């Protein structure tokens, strides 16, 4: 019997589309990936839809509407493996900034007819709703890590995506520490690697796109930032970025909220 190609599906929730675009941004690998799998559902790229079940579902975006909170369960039931891609799907995304405020006020700021808008009070990661097999971090994700995840799941192994901090990669690529050498506040010590330690290589501090690393000591880092003259309000803001609702960043931001 000929081997059946695994069925890949890509699903979108509340997001900017950047993470699923990362798949199309694999210009050199795209046709090879498309040769190895049956792209069964990927509306951004194709109008063809193949019914489930799917061997691997990639989920982008966070849950922000009652309809989406239902829809994710159907996707989970139809998927052998479910992998979330990006900060929205794994931590709620930038739109989770509503979680710290009153969403009704937000609606009235943006929309003339709040009664037309249906939205939940909080923007939540996929794992709050269904079991997730693997979470790929980043705002946006790293496309090479995405190819690694696809390859790992299609071959039945664990993806190799290191959980250590951005600092480690600065050392590896030989970037002088921006915090020590220039006094530039940097979230690198508490942020998971994945971007390739980009910001320090461009002479700016890390701003936390890949979310908290394993066991981050955010309180200690905040003390260092304070010594550099960063105010309490700015400390609150800096943890309230694209991974604001990830537990360690959420707690640290709240510690500086007055």
């Amino acid at each position, binding site marked *: 019997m000929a081997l059946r190609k695994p069925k890949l599906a890509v699903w*979108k*929730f*509340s*997001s*900017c*589309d*950047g*993470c*699923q*675009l*990362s798949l*199309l*941004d694999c*210009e*050199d690998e*795209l*046709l090879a990936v*498309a040769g190895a799998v049956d*792209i069964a559902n990927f*509306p*951004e*790229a*194709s*109008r*063809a839809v193949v019914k489930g079940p799917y061997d691997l579902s990639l989920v982008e975006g966070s849950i*922000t*509407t009652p309809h989406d909170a239902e829809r994710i369960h159907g996707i989970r039931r139809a998927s052998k493996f479910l992998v979330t891609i990006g900060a929205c799907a794994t931590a709620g*995304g*930038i*739109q989770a*900034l*509503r979680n710290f*405020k009153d*969403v009704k*006020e*937000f*609606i009235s*700021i*943006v*929309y*003339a*007819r709040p009664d*037309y*808008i249906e*939205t939940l009070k909080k923007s939540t990661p996929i794992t709050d709703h269904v079991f997730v097999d693997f979470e790929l971090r980043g*705002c*946006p994700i790293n496309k090479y890590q995405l190819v690694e995840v696809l390859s790992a799941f299609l071959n039945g192994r664990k993806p190799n995506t290191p959980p250590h901090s951005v600092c480690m990669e600065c050392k590896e690529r030989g970037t002088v520490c921006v915090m020590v050498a220039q006094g530039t506040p940097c979230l690198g010590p508490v942020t998971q690697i994945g*971007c390739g330690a*980009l*910001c320090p*290589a*461009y*002479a*700016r501090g890390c*701003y936390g*796109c890949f979310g908290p690393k394993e066991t981050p000591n955010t309180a200690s880092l905040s003390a260092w930032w304070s010594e550099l003259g960063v105010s309490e309000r*700015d400390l609150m*803001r800096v943890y309230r*970025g*694209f991974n604001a609702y990830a537990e360690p960043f959420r707690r640290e931001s709240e510690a500086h909220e007055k």
Partner: protein
Amino acid sequence: MKSRTVRVDYLARVEGEGALLVKIKGEQVTDVQFKIFEPPRFFEAFLRGRKFYEAPDITARICGICPIAYQMSACHALEDACGIKITGPIRDLRRLIYCGEWIESHALHVYLLHAPDFLGYEDAIRMAKDHPDEVKRGLRLKKAGNEIVRLLGGREIHPINVRVGGFYKAPHKQDFSALAEELKWARDAALATVRWVASFAFPDFDRDYEFVALRHPDEYPFNEGRLVSNRGLDIAIRDYDQHFVEEHVAHSNALQSRLHERNSYFVGPLARYNLNFDKLSPMAQEAARSAGLGPVCRNPFQSIIVRSVEMVYACDEALRIIEHYEMPDPPAVKIEPRVGTGYGCTEAPRGICYHRYRIDDRGIILDCKIVPPTSQNQKTIEGDLRQFVQTRLALPKDKLQWQCEQAVRNYDPCISCATHFLKLQIESE
């Protein structure tokens, strides 16, 4: 009387979530709704209370396909608020990174999203089986655009090197040498793209549109200029709010824009081309002429040719900038915040993207307004469908539906952007 509907519940090959509903009663189209059900994300709300220098990184996240557009509009608006105008090599680098985004986004749309409609494929991957050389060319062209953004911005999606005032780090002149070689290939590939798409069959369709785009005295517009139209609009960017209004309709999470005095209008490559043909480089003008286009094109299906012409221009312009580049030192102008309101409008690949910010003396954003291109095209898209379907009622349903989708994709709608913004549904009652 016989009634029917054409509906597409989840429009494919667009960025974001939208739907289309066309209602037909007898021989009359009775209703057209271009729906945007992409969930709202409230950027304008949570930007309140953030520092002005955070806006380029935050607003980039409105759209993963055109983050540069948001970064550029935010930077220009905030610099306007602080009374700073950027000139010289930093200004050139901003045009260069925008060239990268146009090439990347246009190549994505021309090859992966729109060409399959003309050649009858569900997607570019299926198209690649019969047209491998074209799809590979498209992917390499897209990569060349992304390579500009990556070199200048650090990464393709949500670049990290753009700041209010300029860049965190400027590249050395020699950093561009490999890129320049690839861009020479890309310019030839863009010319080949113009020839390829010009050979497609185009429906005979046009309407009397009002086109709106930036116009600059010396150059094809990216970041600066006046807002002009073919019906006499000629205003400074800061007067945008006096001439354009946003309306909230029940079927859309995107606010629809219209001109105060008239009504719907058309933004994007076709509008830019029609209002700025004379500012295209000679090579881009010649490519357009050889493809059979005059200085004005009113058939939105031919936007695929215009996008390809703009790729020729963007490669040409990028090469010009690289050739004359001298590294700016420092890479950014220092910005001191002051009380004020600033306005910015730049040409995203899909059309004008308007930002307005009011900040206080500490640089805290008090309120802001962001109008993405797709929400401005919504009413025009609905108008196109109304006229388009009316003349094609005899088509079988699946064919009509596909052609309606194609008519929407003419605009390269980016729904993720427009939400505050699509599904296709054609319904006969």
